[in-house]
């Protein structure tokens, strides 16, 4: 039987408000799995006409897969969110690009024809599961000098990137970080962030129950002078500070993916359509450069060039790594196409969850910009990788649905 590949669409995405990791954070006593469960629940609630049994896969990412981020999270979270027992699920780990990988895996399965509708997402409760919790690096990594020891400390890899690109100064990074805070504050003021936030009841034994309704990490009004005062914890007189990098955060995301055919049949909205994607390995010591070759590969896969991309959602693990990307592609630091709602420096970066945040925001931006045909979501990944996913805007005049008019009429 001839195989028919399916086009895959991003239907909708949501996330919890992001919190600061640690004892004082909003999620200090809230379980990690509960965060992602609320996201799955919200996706289902937003599509009341979709029979939950039609969701045929739940892929959930977490970097540290132990405790409340363990136990085959995708499966358990699906059950706890109210999906039927017939819906399977699994866990994914590709460090910071966990949710991004959950999306590409799920999308690939849909494209292949294994199923039609799936949920992909990620969670990281860095308060309950600090980076590196329980890791046991193989001693050969050091003995055989496979990678520099600094490769396992993300802040040090960012400082390494400054060595490679001396033209990316601390001042440029701080200015980029301030812009990120400003753009997020503006997006909040314009009500562009709130619709995608899932409120989460937060448990605390001394404060009682609370309700998380807004991101905790942003510092609106931050100035470059403020940032200039901050310490550089990874190197004496270095460049990377808490102000020009994403923080340590708690949060979860999830999105609904479908074949374009199924979306049409079930009346699901189309936020964007997957064009192509690529993950690429780089030197672990400068993992921040990863999005560059990943984007080049994804563009090549898609037969596009960087000039075709009208909107960029780049994860801001560190300002230096975004600037390295922009410099490579000849894009200005303050280009309006880049992170219009601000980025991880302002919102926070709960590792494995961030990929879907980029996608959800890109889909909203597509709706605001029907003149843009293609957009890019990209991120750097610990241990030396980059991921890039190219999306097409269904609101663009040249967009052609893969579903024929006849089928639409029958649906």
């Amino acid at each position, binding site marked *: 039987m001839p195989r028919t590949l399916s086009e895959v669409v991003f239907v909708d995405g949501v996330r919890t408000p992001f919190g600061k990791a640690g004892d004082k954070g909003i999620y200090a006593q809230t379980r990690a799995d509960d965060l992602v*469960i*609320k996201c799955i*629940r919200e996706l289902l609630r937003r599509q009341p006409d979709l029979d939950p049994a039609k969701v045929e896969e739940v892929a959930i990412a977490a970097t540290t897969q132990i405790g409340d981020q363990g136990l085959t999270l995708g499966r358990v979270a699906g059950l*706890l*969110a*109210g999906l039927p027992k017939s819906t399977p699920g699994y866990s994914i780990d590709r460090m910071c690009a966990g949710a991004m990988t959950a999306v590409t895996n799920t999308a690939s399965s849909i494209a292949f024809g294994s199923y039609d509708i799936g949920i992909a997402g990620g969670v990281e409760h860095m308060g309950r599961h600090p980076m590196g919790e329980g890791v046991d690096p193989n001693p050969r990594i050091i003995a055989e000098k496979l990678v520099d020891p600094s490769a396992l400390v993300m802040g040090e890899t960012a400082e390494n990137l400054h060595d490679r690109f001396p033209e990316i100064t601390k001042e440029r990074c701080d200015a980029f970080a301030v812009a990120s805070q400003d753009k997020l504050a503006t997006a909040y003021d314009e009500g562009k962030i709130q619709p995608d936030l*899932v*409120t*989460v*009841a937060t*448990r*605390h*034994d*001394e*404060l*009682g*129950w*609370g*309700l998380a*309704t*807004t991101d905790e990490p942003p510092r609106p009004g931050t100035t470059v002078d403020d940032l200039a005062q901050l310490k550089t914890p990874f190197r004496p007189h270095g460049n990377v500070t808490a102000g020009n990098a994403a923080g340590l955060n708690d949060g979860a995301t999830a999105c609904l993916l479908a074949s374009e055919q199924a979306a049409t049949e079930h009346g699901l909205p189309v936020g964007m359509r997957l064009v192509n994607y690529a993950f690429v390995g780089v030197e672990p010591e400068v993992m921040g450069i990863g999005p560059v070759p990943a984007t080049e590969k994804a563009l090549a896969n898609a037969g596009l060039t960087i000039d075709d991309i009208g909107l960029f959602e780049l994860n801001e693990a560190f300002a230096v790594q975004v600037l390295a990307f922009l410099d490579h592609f000849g894009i200005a630091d303050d280009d309006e196409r880049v992170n219009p709602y601000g980025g991880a420096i302002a919102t926070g970066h709960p590792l494995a969850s961030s990929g879907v945040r980029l996608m959800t925001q890109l889909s909203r931006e597509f709706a605001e910009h029907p003149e843009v045909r293609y957009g890019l979501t990209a991120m750097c990944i610990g241990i030396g990788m980059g991921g890039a996913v190219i999306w097409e805007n269904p609101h663009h005049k040249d967009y052609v649905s893969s579903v024929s008019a006849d089928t639409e009429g029958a649906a």
Partner: protein
Amino acid sequence: MTTTTLPEVDEVVTHARAHDIQLPGGAGTFVLITLDNGFDHTKPNSFGAAGLRELGAALDAAAKRAAAGEIAGVGITGKPFIFAVGADLTAVPAITARDQALEIARLGHETFSKISALPVPTFAFINGASMGGGVEIALYADYRTISSDVPAYATPEVFLGLVPGWGGTYLVPHLIGTEKAAQLIVTNPLSQNRMIKGKNAFELGLADRLIEPVTFLEDSLAFAAGVIAGTEQVERATVDTSEAAWEGPLDKAAADADGRTGKAAPAAYKAIELMRLARTASREEAFEAENQALADLIMSDELRSGLYAFDLVQKRAKRPAGAPDKSLARKVTKVGIVGAGLMASQMALLFARKLKVPVVLTDLDQERVDKGVAYVHDEIDKLAGKGRLSPDASNRLKALVTGSVSADGFTAFSDADFVIEAVFEEMSVKKQVFAQVEAAVPAECVLATNTSSLDITEMAADLLHPERVVGFHFFNPVAVMPLLEIIRGDATDDATLATAFATSRSLGKTSILVKNSPSFVVNRLLGRFMGESGRIVDEGTPIEVVEQAFAGLTPMPPFMLISLVGPAIALHNSETLAAAFPDRFAASPNLAKVVEAKLPSFYGSDGKLDPKVLELFEAPADPVVLTAEQVRERALEALADEVRRMLDEGVVQAPQDIDLAMITGAGFPFWNGGVTPLLDRTGIAEKVTGSRFLPIGVASVPEA
């Protein structure tokens, strides 16, 4: 406010944690109060004096902010899985004066009324188990949501001997009408303290929204935001307060209470009286009437007995007095049952369901064995038919229960760890069975006997290992009656006894340790009580009078009880006891005639005394006709005498064990604390035996 000093108690304080929340949709700032005693769900939130004061302070603070226009609403919810389970009853035994009781009653009303007094919309988000005062506090709020996974929702006060007197008798009927209110407040508590679930509470109208647990609090807060913003409408059925509509269901509830308590439990009637009053009384009048009622009840011996009984079944039942260390128990991986009759088959079903190990039924011939196994399999099918067992679970259970003919020397028991016999009540038969079984089973296999009256030591005497014989006495019906009497013979060792207790626990039974003695506890006391009743009838008092004499004392009148267990079995029990204690037990000649005539019951199918029975009865030459009161007094005197003898003989460890046995094995009511609190309360214990069974204050109001 009064200045009464409440007794000092070690209260587990349920804190009221107030936290500001920004409502979704910009509906404003909302104060969410979490009730949390700092423990996990195994120690639920309850309201003691300190907790109520803390809640009061949180509500006062919210009231100030509400008056200042700073907040848009106030809500109350619980800790994970628990909303609140009512007043902290551990403080009650320390209350020695009525004004202290009154103070506790008023403190509840005063604190909860602060909720209704708030000038902003108020909400209760019932997230988990909710009982008594936990139900009531939510009724002071303007709106309620309830989680669909709430496992228990109830006002159990009447069951214990109280009324839901922190507003329940006024607020519940005004919210949902008296028919449903009476069900919740009177009928359910009197029906083995029946609890309902969140969904049922919603259907009764006790909450405005039923919300799934996964996003219960988020959705509840969204509901609150909607109500405050005016986008969410709440509609409730109106309650008919006309006299006819209001009183009818209460009359019915009173009649129902008569049937269940014989008018002996004051709480049910007090609750009904308060609900009657609630129709026309103002809220203040109704609450004050509740205060007075609570004070009266808290100072009643019936309540103290109820709390004593509750403590017995909750605590003493879990740690049987005199039982050896649990760690001595051996694992039971296979059970053998000698006999395949009805009782044996019921046991097989229970063992298979609870222990989930292979159970082998044996009997003399294949036909009886097949019948016994078929009975169990049919019962499993019935459970599956009701949806209480999945097809897989039912396959598993059926595979566990098999049969074997005993003529082959009990080879099927060769790997059994626990064998129980349920053969004919005849010492020689039992001894022979045990001797054959012992030849087949492993050296450490426990040999248990379900005998209801025979001597355990004698039964074990001729075995190679008499130390492994133990009495394991079930009550009929096996699956329903909670009690299991565990009897230690002279030779029984600790490992055997510990295994018996562990097995009883796995079977879900309440067990008490009983000394090897005639008819053990329940049958001995029932035998004395029914024997005395029989003697009174034999002497000339009409059966009807005797039957009326025990309302509120026993779950059913004596001759109805004899009919239930079967006249032949009752006669056998009284003959055993008469043989052991000829001075005070005698087999009734009239009962013997009924047995001889093979009449199955004293009552006909119409529920009335069978005239054929009455015809058999021989009228005495000099009839002594007693009044119901005299009958009751005489029967209680006999019970007091027997209880004292049993304690003196060391049949059980303490009067508490007798009460626990009579409550769980014979259905004696909570409000009498079983039997000894009643005998103390009526002065009969002292009159007959010279002293009380329990010190003042244990199951009665302490002296100030």
